[in-house]
């Protein structure tokens, strides 16, 4: 059993550390196709593989049945025993060469066209709406795990992995970027699917700016940078279940969004503000975002309709 994955998949290169451990690019010997191998070491006790791992991987496999165009394919899963206390779970994903980060870097001088950004955003939100309606949240959405194929197809990667990897994460403290984190996570309050919408908003802005929106160096610094743009939230919106006081931040007013993201059009700006809403309950959902007028005032769309 232990050898089946290494026999079927021939490693080609190490493609990055990733927050959750080493990821390898490999070749499927049968099909010749490239795959991304992600391994997790799970602590196993005398009762075998933990329930959380069994359920989370089963959920990813279930999502796979829908064959959603904006979600990366999970082609295979394998569990192999490392020792009495440890089992290695290998997830075999389809391999896409390019992520949104490199896609943005490679874009020629004036940056991406407004239509291109709209298309990427629509696909990104489609994938997200699909995950959210299946009760999966990403929790770590950023340009590095949004893949863009050579045909311009957006595919979300690394979703739902946080719970599978949680055992492993406790062992290896990893530096996870703070830039796409929503206030509720930075404030260590409770959070749910709106976290991904915040991250999507940050990425939306970054597509126009071609540099990240909020580049904080610590949790507090990140919050400060956020409030410089959206303003300090009112007292009644400040979460009550946290230790950090609102008084630690200067009373800032919101800045006009066009000052921060200059090329964005009016509707785009409105959508962006709906995504960068401090209160997660008031933040727009992925499904509603897809219905936003920003996606409707599209010339090409009206042409195809008529």
């Amino acid at each position, binding site marked *: *059993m232990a050898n*089946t994955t290494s026999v079927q998949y021939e490693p080609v290169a190490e493609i990055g550390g990733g927050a959750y451990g080493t990821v390898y690019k490999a070749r499927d010997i049968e099909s010749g196709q490239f795959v991304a191998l992600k391994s997790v070491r799970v602590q*196993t006790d*005398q*009762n*075998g*593989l933990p*329930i959380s791992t*069994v*359920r989370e*991987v*089963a*959920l*990813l*496999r*279930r999502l796979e*049945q829908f064959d959603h165009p904006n979600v990366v394919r999970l082609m*295979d*899963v*394998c*569990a*192999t*025993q490392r020792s009495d206390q440890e*089992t290695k779970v290998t997830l075999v994903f389809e391999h896409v060469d390019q992520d949104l980060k490199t896609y943005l870097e490679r874009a020629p001088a004036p940056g991406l066209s407004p239509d291109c950004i709209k298309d990427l955003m629509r696909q990104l939100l489609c994938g997200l709406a699909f995950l959210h*309606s299946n009760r999966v949240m990403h929790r770590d959405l950023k340009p590095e795990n949004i893949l863009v194929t050579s045909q311009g197809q957006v595919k979300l990667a690394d979703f739902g992995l946080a719970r599978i990897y949680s055992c492993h994460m406790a062992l290896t403290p990893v530096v996870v970027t703070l830039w796409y984190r929503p206030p509720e996570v930075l404030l260590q309050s409770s959070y749910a699917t709106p976290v991904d919408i915040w991250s999507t908003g940050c990425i939306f802005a970054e597509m126009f700016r071609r540099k990240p929106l909020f580049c904080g160096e610590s949790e507090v610094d990140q919050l400060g940078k956020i409030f410089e743009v959206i303003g300090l939230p009112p007292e009644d919106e400040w979460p009550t279940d946290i230790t950090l006081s609102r008084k630690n931040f200067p009373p800032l007013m919101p800045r006009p969004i066009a000052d921060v993201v200059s090329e964005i059009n009016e509707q785009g700006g409105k959508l962006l503000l709906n995504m960068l809403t401090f209160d997660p309950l008031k933040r727009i959902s992925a499904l509603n975002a897809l219905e936003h007028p920003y996606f409707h005032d599209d010339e090409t769309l009206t042409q195809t309709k008529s």
Partner: protein
Amino acid sequence: DERRAPLRTWANACGPIDRWQPVEVDEPRMAPVKMEPERKWVHNCPVILSSSHSGGDGCVEQTALLYPHGLQSLHSLQALVPSLLRLEVEKSLEALGLIWDRSYAWDVFLDIMRTQTRNMLPNADLPQHFTDATRAVLVNWLIQVHEMMHFQDETLYLAIHLLNCSLRHIKVTTANLQLLGMVCLFLAAKKEESLLPEVSGLCYLMDHTYTKHQLLRMERKVLCGLKFNLSYSPPLHFLVLLASVARCSAKAVWMARYLLELSLLEGQCLVFLPVQLAGAALCLSRQVLQEPQTPEGEAAWCLASSIHVGSETVVLRIMHILAKAAATAHAQETCATFIKFSSPETLHVSRHLGLKNISALLGVCP
């Protein structure tokens, strides 16, 4: 074969214990089974229509607006049916607690209807050394273990589904079949239950024929063989959904649940869709019980059975298999389900006289 001894021991220990009390049942009135003719729609739909209107949901009104030229015409009524069914399915899913948000209900229903076809096995073939009889003994034993553990019913259906799939994807010797069965139940419990048994406890139940190490190795083998595909829409969910749409009585539901569980023991039932198994169990249950009919009940039943339009022959075939299984269930070595459903909590359905009359039952299911 000696290695399967504990399986036998366990089965014998749980033999036909008399946990049932005699039930007084009316002499069953046998009527020939016929699938409801399509025509019935015309008579019955207005009944549902009026009740839905009073429900205050916008769905029916909306459809009425789409077809403004007379609800009297047959054409409009037929066009109305899908939205009625949709409304009923949504209400039922919500009432059964199978969904949290009604706006997703229809999507959820379409999703389970679609995914069941992906989970279907292409044929009923079993590995050579694994006969239908062996399979029935193993499933019967799993039903007993499942009951003893007080697991959810979904866990049992998932376990048997995992067993059926595993037998196709991994090679297991006859000596390890019991271990495979237990691992499938264990994995199903990991997927569905909040409280898990200890592996050592499972080994004890198998008379320590296998070690804990062997059990955990089999667990990895099954997970890899199935590629962690542990999701399944159990026929039981379709049964409670159909029964709710059809406004079936508690007794009819228990009878159908009994018949549906009997299908787990039948190797030939492997090829049928969960929704077909559920529909057949419910249909046969109604035939056995012969409860008094009401116009509302008949209309509701019509609506529920519209899910099977096009697969009536398959449903009849399943009813035939289930009727035969129910008629002989008490005399089989594999009678765990018969005993389970003879309890007062299950309204003694397995002891119902209507089930014993095999010739009448088979007569009506040609």
